[in-house]
Every structure is written in structure tokens, then in C-alpha cells.
């Protein structure tokens, strides 16, 4: 595995004091690797910006340490950190031209005006706005301002680039374009990107690894596929994509494996390793698209059965709400035209198929 660039160790941050005290971060630890596109994902107010600002040096941690390549950063002001930021509002200097914006950081580092100018041209080339150097920011569209903000932050070749919801001000189409663009820039420059978003699709599409945060804590860190397919917490399963949750008891599934016995009596074998220490009631999650439907007559004895309560046709797929009785509902999404019979009517009795590896036991 490649080298750790940023390392947060039990970082805590509180704002205010007394009755107004807000805990924005609660002992967060994370390692971010070189040349990685790392995303912090979570709902509003979970502390993403705070963590980013701590790394950038705009706030000071209340507890814990932040290291850059093993050296403690805590007391360094932002202008002494080889880390640059793309601000959510872009924060382009309105009184300077595009090119002056890009050379700003270089000149502050003492690079000669001529060299800085050359580098700025390179950067403009990189973000494909070569002809825009002499404009002022107010003469650029939102998407162009975004690219200039990127070029400005990349120009000094920082070790880490911080991006706080940089795409949130763009409309959907531009957003998609910029996602591709950002990914390209990250690969071309080889700079570590730490990206903040509350948009799960964006996170899944762009990241090498994602940290899912909730109320000041990191719940799970992993590659997009891992986060999506093997969520460890109910919050993660719910926040990223759609999930069904079922409650059951952990039982022995034979052959060294465990199984879950649902309240209806059905037993589902698990492929997931679950520690022997865990017993009793657990919640499991399963993605709607990992479930299938068969006619009740075709269902095995061990299979869940229920009644189709709603059918919603989405074109590429169809979503079924299945009433399992005792108020439990299950959502099943089946792809249309995949050959499998996917045509059940409301009120029909059905059996539900699921592959064992789709079932994930969640942490309490």
C-alpha cells in the first residue's frame, strides 16, 4: 500500500462553550494515502467541512493530532501548509484577472513572475480555459469559475488538494461534466484529493475510497463497492442507495457459518463472517436489486413469501413492494427485459429469492 499523506488521530473539535457548545467532530481517525481520491460523505452538519478546515489549517483541533507525511501540523497556519483548497464559493479574487488569480499562490511562494506566468498558462491549459487568462472572474460562468478555482489551487502543486462540495453550485449537467473533469485532473496531476460531498452518487462515481460520516464520527471507510455492497451500519446502508432492513436472530448455520432466523421462521444462511461473540437479535440489510421474485407455487419451504402491494414501473426496472405480513415491507427491484419473469400483479402471492452474500449483518 502506498504512503500515508494525511493522518488524523483522534481528532475532536468543539465550537463555543457552555450551553452553546457544539461537538462538530468526535475523535475522528483516518489515514489518507498518496495519490488517492478520498471522499468524505455524510449528511449536512455531520462535520465534513470541519474536518476539511482542520486539515487546511483554518480551524484548530480541540483534541487529537493531524499529521502531514508524519509531521504534526496542528500549529502551522494555512499559509505554511503545502495543502490547497477549492472553496465551495470558489473565492476567486474579484479584483484580479484569471491569470493573476492563478499566479497568486506562486508569487506568494516567491516564484518569479515569469515562471509563475508560465505555470499559470500550463494550468489554464490543464483546465481547458487557455484563452480566458485576461478575464476577471465576474466574466466567467459558474463552471468556468470552478475550473479556475481548481487551476489556482493546483498551480502551487500542493501535496493535498481539499475540495469542499465544489460542485454543489453547478447545475446537474455541468456537475456530471465536472465529475469526469475532476477525476481526470486527479489522475493527471497525481495529487491527493480530499473531497467533501453529501451526494452519494457523486461519491461513488469519483472516489477511490469513501469515509461515511454521521454526527461528528466516521462510521465506515472503504472503496465505493465495499461501502455499497457491504455496509457495516444501518446509517451507511440507508444513506447510500436503498436498503431493506430485516430483523432476526443469529443462529448456527452449519459448516462453520452463521445464519439469521427471521421472525417469520425462515432461516437465511450467511456468507459474511460474523464473530462468535455476537448472538441474539440483529438487523440485516439487503439491497432491493439483490432480491428476486418467483410465483409462490415455485417458492421453496425456506423462502420468504408475501403479497405484492405496489408495483412501480421505472422503464429500466420495476419496483415491487412486498407485504410480508406482520407489518414488514420489502422492496424488490427487478430489471426489465433481463429474461427473468418480472411481471407480478398487485395482490399476487410471491416468493422472494435472495443470494446469501447479499445479506449483511449490521453493527448495533
Amino acid at each position, binding site marked *: 500500500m502506498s504512503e500515508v499523506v494525511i493522518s488524523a488521530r483522534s481528532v475532536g473539535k468543539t465550537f463555543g462553550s457552555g450551553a452553546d457548545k457544539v461537538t462538530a467532530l468526535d475523535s475522528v481517525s483516518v489515514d489518507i494515502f498518496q495519490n488517492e481520491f478520498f471522499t468524505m460523505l455524510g449528511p449536512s452538519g455531520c462535520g465534513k467541512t470541519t474536518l476539511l478546515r482542520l486539515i487546511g489549517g*483554518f480551524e484548530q483541533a480541540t483534541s487529537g493530532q493531524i499529521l502531514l507525511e508524519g509531521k504534526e501540523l496542528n500549529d502551522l497556519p*494555512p499559509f505554511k501548509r503545502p495543502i490547497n483548497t477549492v472553496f465551495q464559493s470558489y473565492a476567486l479574487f474579484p479584483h484580479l484577472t484569471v491569470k493573476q488569480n492563478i499566479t497568486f499562490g506562486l508569487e506568494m511562494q516567491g516564484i518569479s513572475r515569469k515562471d509563475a506566468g508560465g505555470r499559470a498558462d500550463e494550468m489554464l491549459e490543464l483546465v481547458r480555459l487557455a484563452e480566458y487568462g485576461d478575464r476577471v472572474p465576474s466574466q466567467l460562468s459558474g463552471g468556468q469559475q470552478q475550473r479556475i478555482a481548481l487551476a489556482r489551487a493546483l498551480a502551487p502543486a500542493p501535496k493535498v488538494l481539499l475540495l469542499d462540495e465544489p460542485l454543489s453550485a453547478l447545475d446537474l449537467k455541468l456537475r456530471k461534466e465536472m465529475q469526469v473533469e475532476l477525476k481526470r485532473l486527479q489522475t493527471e496531476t497525481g495529487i491527493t484529493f480530499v473531497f467533501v460531498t453529501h451526494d452519494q452518487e457523486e461519491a461513488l462515481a469519483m472516489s477511490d475510497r469513501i469515509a461515511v460520516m454521521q454526527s461528528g464520527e466516521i462510521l465506515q471507510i472503504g472503496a465505493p463497492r465495499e461501502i455499497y455492497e457491504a455496509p457495516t451500519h444501518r446509517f451507511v446502508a440507508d444513506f447510500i442507495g436503498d436498503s431493506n432492513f430485516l430483523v432476526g436472530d443469529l443462529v448456527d448455520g452449519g459448516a462453520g457459518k452463521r445464519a439469521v432466523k427471521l421472525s417469520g421462521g425462515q432461516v437465511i444462511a450467511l456468507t459474511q463472517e460474523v464473530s462468535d461473540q455476537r448472538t441474539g437479535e440483529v438487523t440485516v440489510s439487503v439491497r432491493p436489486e439483490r432480491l428476486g421474485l418467483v410465483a409462490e407455487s415455485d417458492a421453496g419451504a425456506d423462502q420468504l413469501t408475501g403479497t405484492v402491494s405496489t408495483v412501480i414501473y421505472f422503464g429500466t426496472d420495476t419496483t415491487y413492494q412486498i407485504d410480508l405480513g406482520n407489518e414488514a415491507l420489502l422492496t424488490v427491484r427487478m430489471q426489465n427485459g433481463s429474461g427473468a419473469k418480472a411481471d407480478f400483479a398487485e395482490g399476487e402471492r410471491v416468493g422472494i429469492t435472495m443470494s446469501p452474500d447479499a445479506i449483511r449483518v449490521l453493527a448495533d
Partner: protein
Amino acid sequence: MKVDASNPLWRFRGITSTAMFFFAYLYLPIVVLIALSFNENRLATIWTGFTMDWYVTALSNDDMLRAAQNSIVVAVSATVLATIAATLAAMGMSRGRFKGEAGVSAMLVLPLLVPEIVTAIATLLFFVALGIKLGLLTVIIAHTVFCIPFAYLPIRARLEGMDPALVEAANDLYANEWKAFRRVTLPLLWPGILSGAMLSFIISLDDFVISYFVGGAGSTTLPIYIFGMIRIGITPEVNAVSAMMLIVSIVFVSISFMIDRIRY
């Protein structure tokens, strides 16, 4: 007259005539004064012809020129001092709250709340108690006090409208605090500073009551000089000097407002 048709308030008639009366009332004296300053007739009321003579007479009056010079010295000094203090204060007051902020805020606008006459006599008593001789210096000190809020408010307004991320962006791009101030904050703030300075200048130049009480021999400012002339009687020279003061004020304020509207 064109009205904003989507605005239902225009349906109320009678307001137009009142408004016309209002503006006539507001500008009639100013227009009349300026017109009379060019009137050849010494008795002012009847128009007998255009002349610049009264301006020539006024501008060749040494006492008047000395008073004008005093006024400018006072206004420039008070403006410079007040603008510096106000700029620093506005920067200190921007960005987040702090303990005692309300008190500091109140202090900064206190000079706008206290009636002029009260400021005047309190300051006079203070200088007397300290044994400071009344003169240009005391006038400058007193003017600086009431100029601070006039400079402060536009600068503060501009800072409020500035994205705090800009300074952070400068810091992020390796500018230390001083460089961030010089390269980012100051260039963005200058219209506010200039506009505030010009308002201070005008307010100081026009002040009468405070200069009158706090000044002493040798610190006669232009308004005090004009006051003395008016006391003696209405003359075309007074008209000319007054018209000049009016025009200077109006020009300065117009420029100040235009500068304040500069947006990037």
C-alpha cells in the same frame, strides 16, 4: 409619469402631488441660494443680471480664505485619523461575534446619538478641565470623534458584503496575514474606505456647532466665519460663499456615493 405597474401602491392618488411638493420644498432653497449668488443686484430679491463678481469678492477676502484653510486643515486631519481608526475597527468587528461586541458597536456609533450641542459643551468642559488651550488642535480632536462613525459605516458595510473565504483563500495560497490584507482585503475595501473618508471630510467641513464651542482664537473655520457674516446681515458675498459650500458638499457626496456603488 412611468410607474411600476405591478406595484399596487400607485393606485393611491394624491401622493404624487405631495411628493412633488416635497422635492420642491427640499430643493427650492438650494436652487434659490445658488441663483442669487450669481445675481448682479445687491438687494438680492430682483434678478437684474448674471455676475460672478460676488465670487471674486469672496475669494479675495483674506479672512474668508484663512477660515477656508482652517476648515481644510481640520477636515483633512480629522478624516485621516478617523478613517484609519474606522478601517481598523471595521476589520476587528467583521467575522463572527465576540464578547462585548454590542458594547463596542454602541461606542462606535455613540457620536451619532449624542446631540451635537451636548457633545460640544461636554468636549469644551473636558478641554478646559485638562487645561488644553482651545484652538485648531482641539477642533481636530473633536471632529475626529464624530467622523469615526461616518467613516466606519460604509467600510463596515463593504466588509460585511465580502466573502470571508477570500481571505482564507489568500492564506491558503501562502499569503501571510499582512500580505493577505495588502493584496486582497485592502484592494477590495478601498471603495468603502474612500467613500467613508469622503463622507467624513464633508461632515467635518460642514460642522458648525462643535467647532463653534470647541474652537478658540485662530481656529475660525469656514462655517463659523459664515455664521459671523450672516449675523451681520444678508449680503451677496455670503450667498457666494454659501453656494460654494453647497456645491462642494453635493459634489463630494455624489462622488462618494458613486464610489460606494463600485462592484467587482
